[in-house]
């Protein structure tokens, strides 16, 4: 059962690579395969939440010798989310008409990478799946093949390659100090290793994931990439791929290196605050919806970091909840920004309200979780500072989201022809999901708490 979601997408990707993805039936075939993978993942997730983690060692070797695949609450949460986002984006592009033959296969390869890295319990194996995901997204970023997209792809590739090499060095270094690649083993042995080296290793791993989520000051690649890539690709990058960064920060920080995370908490809070304010301030004066969303992504990455800096079960749960909600929001918004018509305007508005944290939307609970985390610390000065920061960041989110919403959807209402009904319904359905989680938040809240519970640093 653990292998099934991985096997489905991986095996399906190969024949699709040889087919011409511009044909409609190929696109739908890919959607069906990805949908099957999604369902298998969902089944796995249900089992994990009901009965606890599932694990197996590839090749039937003893643990640590072979690669351990481990599905725990944290991993399956991100996996279901990311594959869901990919599914939505692929269906969106298939509805609108695929332009390049490789697209469906690339999305499936990306799904393979994401599934694998969320389900693996081995640090180096994580790196390998990470590279599968990154390589497919490098190619995807150039989708459209005009100067704009190619430039975005180049920037994306070069900066993220730098991040990948940093991450790889981090893994090698962790192996050196712990003598193992198994995540559980690393968590055990990194805690007894000398703090000096582990902290430095943690720093470069942090940078690698910081680049991925677009944290200030590692974010400079992000705005042109999110702005200039195709809408569906931008949705994939921000809704699915950025999850690697959030997941990585949570997994490597709170689970594998909790001692270093606690030690670096002040730095995380400062960087997070800078990211929140910087991204939100930049987003105010931008010219297009996608650019506003890009800066908003930077701002929201800061929130995740702040939640991690707050730490404890509440902080980690908030980080996970916010990461999930943020990914949903960005998917809806990027997809909606590429369309026109009144259903789309409603979807964009729902996304905007969710980003601003207005109920009844999933974003509200993300924001409330952050505020609860901000109130939690015993130090009143810290609490006040955190709450004030969250307040200012939220206020700016109101300004930038609704300035752009009014400009793009109110002022220009009726301009341009309406997009296809299929894509619009898809986007509205996603937005409906955001509202549904706002009305009935229990699944999100329970999942984030349970996911935080599997972390070494997140046990009460």
């Amino acid at each position: 059962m653990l292998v099934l979601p991985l096997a489905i997408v991986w095996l399906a990707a190969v024949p699709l690579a040889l087919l011409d993805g511009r044909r409609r039936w190929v696109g739908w075939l890919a959607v069906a395969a990805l949908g099957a993978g999604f369902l298998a993942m969902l089944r796995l997730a249900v089992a994990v939440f009901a009965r606890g983690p599932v694990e197996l060692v590839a090749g039937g070797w003893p643990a640590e010798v072979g690669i351990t695949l481990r599905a725990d609450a944290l991993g399956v949460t991100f996996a279901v989310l990311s594959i869901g986002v990919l599914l939505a984006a692929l269906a969106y592009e298939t509805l609108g008409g695929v332009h390049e033959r490789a697209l469906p296969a690339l999305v499936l390869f990306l799904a393979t990478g994401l599934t694998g890295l969320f389900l693996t319990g081995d640090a180096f194996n994580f790196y390998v799946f990470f590279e599968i995901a990154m390589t497919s997204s490098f190619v995807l970023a150039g989708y459209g093949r005009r100067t704009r997209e190619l430039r975005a792809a180049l920037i994306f590739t070069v900066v993220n390659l730098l991040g990948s090499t940093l991450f790889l060095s981090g893994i090698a270094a962790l192996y050196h100090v712990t003598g193992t690649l198994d995540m559980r083993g690393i968590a055990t042995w990194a805690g007894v290793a000398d703090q000096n080296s582990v902290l430095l290793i943690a720093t470069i791993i942090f940078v690698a994931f910081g680049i991925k989520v677009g944290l200030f000051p590692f974010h400079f690649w992000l705005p042109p990439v999110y702005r200039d890539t195709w809408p569906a690709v931008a949705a994939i990058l921000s809704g699915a791929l950025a999850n690697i960064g959030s997941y990585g920060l949570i997994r490597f920080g709170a689970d594998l290196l909790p001692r270093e995370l606690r030690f670096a908490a002040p730095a995380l809070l400062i960087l997070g605050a800078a990211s929140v304010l910087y991204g939100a301030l930049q987003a105010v004066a931008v010219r297009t919806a996608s650019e506003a969303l890009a800066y908003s992504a930077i701002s929201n990455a800061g929130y995740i970091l702040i939640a991690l800096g707050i730490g404890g079960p509440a902080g980690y749960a908030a980080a996970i909840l916010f990461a999930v909600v943020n990914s949903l929001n960005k998917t809806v918004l990027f997809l909606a920004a590429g369309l026109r018509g009144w259903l789309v305007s409603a979807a964009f508005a729902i996304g905007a309200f969710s980003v601003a944290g207005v109920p009844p939307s999933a974003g509200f609970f993300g924001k409330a979780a952050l505020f609860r985390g901000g109130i939690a610390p015993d130090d009143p000065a810290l609490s006040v500072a955190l709450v004030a920061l969250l307040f200012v960041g939220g206020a700016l989110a109101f300004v930038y989201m609704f300035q752009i919403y009014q400009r793009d959807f109110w002022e220009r209402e009726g301009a341009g022809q309406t997009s296809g009904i299929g894509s619009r319904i898809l986007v509205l359905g996603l937005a409906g999901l955001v509202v549904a989680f706002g009305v009935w938040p229990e699944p999100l809240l329970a999942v984030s708490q349970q996911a935080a519970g599997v972390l070494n640093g997140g046990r009460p």
Partner: protein
Amino acid sequence: MTVLTRVIARLLLPSTLITAIAVLVKGYGDVGDGFSAAVIAAFGVLLQYVAFGHRAAARALPLRAMPAVSFAGLLLALLVTFGPVLRGQAPLAHSPAPGADVIYLGTLELHTALVFDLGVFLLVFGFAVGAIDLIAGATDRERGQGPL
């Protein structure tokens, strides 16, 4: 291009391929594996390019099929990976199982890991040759015609 280079190139093609196969099957016992074997084999093909030019090489060799070879290799490796799952074993569980007896073909041990390595070989070979072909093709388009 002199006649000599062409002759040498033609002669070298089988020998590189044989070296490659040797590296492939010997991998388990000694240095080398499917990957190195594939790169060595790719050099043999590359030599044909140098000797005969892209057009001629493309005519003589099934270059168009390279992506297919590549993905067939990937599929093969994937089947070895996920095949055992159908039998209720862990993925990549090789048969014969660890410690069990192996059928020998001369000194060659028949083992699913070998099939896995074959998949790697096909994929990397397809990649190397395919990439070179694509670059050569782009060169052709860029300046009409000519060798690498």
